């Protein structure tokens, strides 16, 4: 009996050691939450140097605003304001009662009105194939294909893009409109882009943060896009972008720039080429920010926006008259190309 009890006591003793071995959770107070957020961003955010942000200076601005007796709404406002100093659409603080976001200051018009496109270019009898609006319309006796992809959240199935490409196969050229596409799943961007690829091409390189230093990144990976699928289109493709193109759409635009038959027309995209990762504060609030950087094959960083090959802004007066200047330039490029 004694030996039985000895064994059982040994077991209990060992398991109770975990109270000593496991570290204690941090306190849940404004100061601890502030320090945790500032330190994690300091170690893992990827664009301090690129954006010229002095994170220590920002600490000195916002830390004095933290008081022990502030309520959660006041704490949220201070932490959100601090994160907005990163000027990054991939940065959010998520509380049960609010989500912080960086509001892009559009120094440009919207440059997109889908109602205008329907009324004056493609009509209302277009097809919706998966997430892809698609149709053809005529201009100067030529058939021009039009695809609108409004988001990369919805999966693009192989059958969807097979149908769309097959439908637009005999077009003089295709207008691929991704204006106001706020991004989504990179896989969808690759599914769509690979159907316009003429050959395997180096589209961009990417590196993840792998240390606490602001410029500590891991190995740079070269990313390629290859032709895929049964149906591919390698005629003239005009990619339309505006400031509403963000994240995966900016990656898509960067990738399309590698293909010589694709021309980007419109406005600079909204950027957002860094991949965001998500974390949690001691009070349970979630937050996310960019932890990687993406460079073009030439080594350029387009985090602040992918510039078009042809910059065009819609004239508001023209829009009132039912004219989308960006579309007109795209149509002109296609019609002007030799067959």
């Amino acid at each position, binding site marked *: 009996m004694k030996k039985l009890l000895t064994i*059982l006591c040994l077991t209990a003793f060992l398991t109770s050691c975990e109270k000593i071995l496991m570290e204690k959770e941090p306190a849940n107070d404004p100061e601890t939450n502030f320090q945790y957020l500032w330190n994690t961003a300091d170690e893992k955010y990827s664009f301090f140097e690129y954006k010229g942000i002095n994170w220590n200076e920002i600490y000195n601005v916002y830390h004095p605003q933290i008081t022990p007796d502030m309520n959660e709404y006041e704490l949220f406002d201070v932490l959100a304001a601090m994160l907005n100093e990163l000027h990054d659409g991939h940065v959010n603080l998520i509380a049960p009662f609010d989500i912080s976001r960086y509001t892009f200051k559009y120094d440009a018009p919207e440059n997109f009105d889908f109602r205008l496109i329907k009324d004056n270019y493609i009509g209302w009898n277009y097809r919706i194939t998966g997430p892809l609006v698609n149709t053809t319309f005529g201009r100067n006796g030529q058939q021009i294909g039009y695809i609108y992809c409004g988001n990369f959240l919805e999966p693009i199935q192989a059958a969807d893009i097979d149908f769309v490409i097959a439908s637009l196969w005999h077009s003089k050229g295709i207008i691929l409109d991704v204006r106001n596409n706020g991004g989504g799943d990179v896989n969808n961007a690759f599914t769509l882009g690979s159907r316009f690829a003429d050959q395997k091409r180096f589209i961009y390189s990417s*590196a993840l943060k792998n240390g606490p230093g602001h410029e500590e990144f891991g190995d740079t990976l070269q990313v390629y896009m290859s032709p895929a699928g049964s149906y591919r289109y390698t005629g003239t493709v005009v990619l339309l972008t505006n400031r509403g193109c963000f994240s995966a759409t900016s990656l898509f635009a960067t990738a399309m720039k590698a293909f010589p038959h694709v021309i980007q027309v419109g406005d600079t995209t909204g950027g957002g080429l860094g991949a965001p*990762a998500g974390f949690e504060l001691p009070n349970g609030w979630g937050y996310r920010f960019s932890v990687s950087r993406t460079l073009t094959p030439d080594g350029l960083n387009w985090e602040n926006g992918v510039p078009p090959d042809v910059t065009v802004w819609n004239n508001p007066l023209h829009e009132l008259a039912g004219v989308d200047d960006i579309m007109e330039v795209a149509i002109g490029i296609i019609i002007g190309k030799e067959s």
Partner: protein
Amino acid sequence: MKMNRKIIPCILIAFFIVGASLAALPHDKLKREQRKLERKARDKYLGLGMGGSYIKVIDNATSPLLYRGLTIPFVSLGYLTHSEKIIKTFEADFSFGELKSRTETPWYDQRNTSFWLAFRYNHLFRVRHFAKPSINWYLGPEINTNAHLRVNYKYENSAFTFDNYNGIGFSSRIELPFGYKAAAFKFLFMNLKRRDRNLWLSWQLSVPVVSWMLRPTYVTITNFVDPELQSAVTTDHTDGGLFVPMNIRSQTELFYELHNGNLFKLAYIWNFYHHDPGYNKVQSAFHAVCFSFVFKFNQN
């Protein structure tokens, strides 16, 4: 952070452990025949058990908070070869459930869904008896892998976090057989007979010598801007060495022998691991209680 030169002595020690075990095999033909007969005489069992487990984990990769919860069911499948001189065990455990933190608000917080899978093989040799001849102490090598996958969509792209511990080490086991002799007794107004009852209690402690851990990267995500790398495992995911990551396992089992040779087994398992390569520290404590039917499938 990458595996560096410290893995070379670990690999050498792992080879030493395996080599020493192989060297202990007899080369003499007569001894080999004797060993063959001894192996045939060992009792062989297959066990299937169910129960519940309780997991506590702090994963600094995504959160400083302690997540804990009851994960039911806990399922265990085991193969046991048992004799006075040798014990061989192969076990596979699985549990699934949800973990919560102190801050959870039901309408807001996503649960942390936990999947636990463990495989373990040990080959123990009797070292000595203790005070009484019937108490045996066994010692031998153990190979152990356990994987804990957690899914929490609150972390968006960092939703999947995991710890996959792999180790070669030593396991020490004490076995204490005991029993009750047949007796007749009265309970209330009933005359009852109690048969001979044979039980044994065992306690096994396992510690690593060489181990390595598979964890998320420094920033928790893979470089998913390249679809081909979305589930790639790179050196950024791994870290290992001598004695760390630390993984300790204690298993207390009570076997009750039935008259047909089968067994009932009640087990309490405690597994603790800790890994801190300088960032994204993870600590986990795992408790499980399992009741098993253990079937004897040899004729001895």
